[in-house]
């Protein structure tokens, strides 16, 4: 090829669509140090990009940016959202595992859904409690109460933990039975609407296996809902 003939092929060269023989010839020519051809290939590359920007405009899905940033190890700027999501995923796994022993499938699903609702909602109030047994209570007006506790005491045979919702100035109401895993950890959920303005605290006692209608022992956990 003459220099002139080559100069007609730079766009195709830059697009990578030349036949191998022609490409090799241009490669060699550039390797030999032809300054004007090197410049022409750059020009062709930019020309090509301009032509490509003729592609019909299309909007990528919002998740794509998050995905790309996650791939370089950057979490979303909305950190609180991620904390909630991470916590809810961990809780969901824990809850499902814990539920297998004692609950029916449909109850598990309802409970799992309630956990997600509670943890993901901006309406949720979180209260931490305890020095011995410690953890968090999450209360959501429309979804219910979620308790996560660690360092709970080992239960004697025939005993269970029972959660209570204590109205302001009223008697504790039973809020479900639960047990711990081998490490003294537990999560428990009471699905359903709850009135934050009339609720004073969430508590846990040790009760006989069948549960009680009123507490029969001193609470090992009391989580007052501050400001309510």
């Amino acid at each position: 090829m003459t220099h002139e003939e080559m100069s007609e092929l730079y766009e195709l060269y830059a697009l990578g669509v030349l036949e191998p023989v022609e490409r090799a010839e241009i490669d060699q020519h550039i390797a030999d140090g032809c300054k004007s051809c090197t410049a022409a290939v750059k020009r062709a590359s930019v020309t090509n990009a301009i032509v490509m920007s003729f592609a019909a405009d299309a909007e990528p899905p919002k998740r794509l940016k998050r995905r790309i940033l996650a791939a370089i190890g950057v979490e979303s700027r909305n950190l609180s959202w991620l904390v909630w999501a991470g916590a809810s995923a961990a809780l969901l796994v824990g809850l499902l595992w814990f539920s297998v022993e004692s609950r029916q499938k449909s109850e598990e699903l309802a409970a799992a859904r309630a956990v997600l609702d509670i943890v993901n909602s901006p309406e949720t109030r979180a209260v931490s409690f305890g020095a011995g047994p410690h953890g968090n209570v999450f209360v959501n007006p429309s979804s219910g109460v979620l308790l996560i506790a660690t360092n709970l005491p080992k239960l004697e045979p025939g005993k269970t933990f029972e959660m209570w919702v204590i109205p302001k100035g009223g008697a504790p109401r039973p809020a479900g039975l639960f047990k711990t895993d081998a490490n003294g950890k537990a999560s428990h959920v009471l699905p359903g609407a709850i009135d934050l303005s009339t609720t004073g605290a969430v508590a846990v006692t040790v009760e006989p296996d069948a549960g009680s209608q009123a507490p029969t022992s001193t609470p090992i956990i009391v989580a007052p809902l501050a400001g309510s």
Partner: protein
Amino acid sequence: MIRWFILTAVLPALAALLKHQDDGDLVDRLKRRDPQALSELYDRYGRLTYSVILRVVHNEGVAEDLVQETFLRIWNRAAAFDQTRGALGPWILTVARNRAIDYLRSVEGRASESIFQIDKLEHPALFCDLESGILNLDRVRVVQAAMSKLNANQRMVIELAYFEGLSQTEMSERLKQPLGTVKSWVRGALKTLRDEIGEAVVVA
């Protein structure tokens, strides 16, 4: 199937290229591997990149994967980019197109370009040492004018080369036209583009 250029779709896409001529600071931060810079880079070029890739692969899920690959490649190779006189947008679009064409070739069972060859075609140095105003508003009209001057056959072969990655031999087979005829269409189309666009691209 041949898809024609839609001239009315030109402006938003080109606007994205033109809006950010001053990418120097962004490149500088990319080179220092500032994650926030990648986020801004996506804000500037994500939509255009997605548009170009989708145009080639015609599959939204695949396009997402390839956009991610494109931005990670830019992220990993930004160190070799000259922030003062480089054309970041054209570089990203070139990387994007190469990913998309490579995908198209693999699913169509065509031979892929060697990794060595692709690396050469999208080497950062190719997009550096250019005059700073390489992409300016005047060129929008220039590009539109150039495209509108192409006849139907010329537009078709440009389409096949840019968005389907076909060589002239492959075009001749696809279009069932003699190679000589295809070559003359390509030559005419590129000459028009080069005369209208290329001459305005000054290389330092």
